[in-house]
C-alpha cells in the first residue's frame, strides 16, 4: 500500500473500520505523519459525536456493579511514550529509568508509604522535556539505591509526605501526596535539618499537589527535613512554622 493510500485511511481508522494488520500499518505511518495524526484526532472527535447522539439511560444496577468492581481494580501507570507522540530524543534511555522508578516506587510503597506508586504519574505527566527526564533519572537513582530508606508522615488534610534517603548517594527525595495547593503567591519549600538549622533544599512545583522532588544539595549529615510555606521564589531561611518535620531513618 502506498503512502497516499495510507493517508486516505484516516477516516476508516477513526471509525475503527480497519482490520488488525491494516491498523498496525496505518499506526506506523501516522507515527511519522503529523498531518495524519492531527486528522485522526479531528475525525475521531467527529465520530465520537455520532456516539453521543445515541446516548442511552443505564439502570442503577450498572453503576453499582461498576463501582464495586473498580474498588478491586488496580490502576495502570501512565504510558511513558504516547503512541503517536513525535519521536523524542532519549526515549530509549528513558524506558529503563522509568521501569526502575516504577519498581522503586512500588518498593517504597511496600515500606509503608501510602499509595506512593501514584507519584509515578506526577513524575510522568507531560514529561517529554529532557530536563525533567534528568531529574526523574536522579530521583529514580535515589529510590533504587541499595541503601535507600524511607519514612512517611501524615500531613494536615489527609496529605502524606515520604522522604527517601540514600547515604551512599548522599541524596534525598521527598514525595508529597495530595497536598493542598499552596495559597496564591506562596510555595512549599523543603529544608534539610542540620541539627536545628534549616538549609534550603529547593521548592516544590506550586502547580502540583502530588510530586516526587529530588532535594537540592547533599544530605551531608542532616538529621532530618522539614517543609514550610514561603513566598513565591522561596526564602533563605524559613519564615513560617514547618508543616512537617521528618527525621531521617537511621
Amino acid at each position, binding site marked *: 500500500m502506498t503512502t497516499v493510500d495510507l493517508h486516505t485511511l484516516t477516516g476508516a481508522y477513526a471509525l475503527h473500520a480497519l482490520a488488525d494488520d491494516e491498523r498496525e500499518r496505518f499506526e506506523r505511518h501516522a507515527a511519522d505523519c503529523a498531518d495524519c495524526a*492531527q486528522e485522526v*484526532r479531528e475525525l475521531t472527535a467527529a465520530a465520537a459525536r455520532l456516539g453521543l447522539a445515541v446516548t442511552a439511560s443505564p439502570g442503577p444496577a450498572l453503576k453499582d456493579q461498576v463501582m464495586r468492581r473498580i474498588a478491586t481494580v488496580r490502576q495502570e501507570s501512565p504510558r511513558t511514550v504516547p503512541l503517536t507522540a513525535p519521536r523524542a530524543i532519549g526515549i530509549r534511555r528513558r524506558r529503563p529509568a522509568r521501569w526502575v522508578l516504577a519498581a522503586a516506587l512500588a518498593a517504597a510503597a511496600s515500606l509503608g508509604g501510602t499509595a506512593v506508586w501514584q507519584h509515578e504519574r506526577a513524575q510522568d505527566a507531560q514529561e517529554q522535556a529532557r530536563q525533567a527526564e534528568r531529574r526523574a533519572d536522579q530521583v529514580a537513582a535515589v529510590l533504587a539505591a541499595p541503601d535507600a530508606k524511607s519514612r512517611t508522615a501524615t500531613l494536615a488534610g489527609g496529605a502524606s509526605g515520604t522522604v527517601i534517603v540514600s547515604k551512599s548517594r548522599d541524596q534525598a527525595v521527598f514525595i508529597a501526596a495530595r497536598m493542598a495547593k499552596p495559597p496564591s503567591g506562596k510555595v512549599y519549600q523543603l529544608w534539610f535539618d542540620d541539627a536545628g538549622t534549616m538549609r534550603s533544599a529547593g521548592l516544590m512545583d506550586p502547580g502540583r499537589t502530588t510530586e516526587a522532588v529530588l532535594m537540592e544539595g547533599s544530605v551531608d549529615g542532616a538529621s532530618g527535613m522539614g517543609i514550610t510555606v514561603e513566598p513565591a521564589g522561596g526564602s533563605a531561611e524559613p519564615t513560617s512554622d514547618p508543616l512537617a518535620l521528618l527525621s531521617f531513618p537511621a
Partner: protein
Amino acid sequence: MKEAVEIGRNPSAEPDLPDLMARVARGDQEAFASLYDVVAGPVLGIVRRVLRDRAQSEEVAQEVLVEAWRTAARYRPERGSVMNWVLTLAHQRAVDRVRSVEASAAREHKAALLDRTPEFDEVTEQVEARLEREQVRRCLRTLTELQRQSVTLAYYRGLTYREVAELLALPLGTVKTRLRDGLIRLRDCLGVTA
C-alpha cells in the same frame, strides 16, 4: 459547508471533566462516580447501538467503564476531550466484541453479513429518528447519501471498510475515500476541533 451549529450545550466540551479525570487517575473513587454519571449513558448507548444485544451490551459497557478507571492515567488532555476518549474506547470495545464473535464463526461470516443486510435501512432510520442531538442529525444530512451510508455502517454497525464495500458493492478505494470525506464533512459541520 462550514456550517457549525450549536444547539444546546455540547457535553463533549464539559469543562470540569479534565479535572475529574486527573482525580480519577490518582485513585479517587468519588471522582470516578461523578465521571460515571457523565459518560455511562453515552457509553452504553454506543455499545448497544453496535451490539444490539442488551445483555452483551451491559457487559461490554461495564468493561469499558472499568477500563476507563484502570487506564485513566493514560488520558492525555492535549489529544482530545475526556468524552472523546471514553467514547472512542467504548466504540473500539464494541467493535472488538462484534469481530471476535464473527471471527469464531468465520465461515458463516459472509452469510451473516448478508443476513444482516435488510437491517441496514432500519438501522439508519432508527439512527436518524432517535438522534438526540439535533446538530448531528442535521450534519449527517449534509453528507452525500453514499458517504452517510458508509459512515453509519462503519460506526453504528461496527463493520470494517471492506465489509462496507462488500455490502454496498463498491470498490475498496471508493469506500475509504467516502469514509474520510464523510467524516471531514461531519467534522466541519459540527465545528469539531482537536
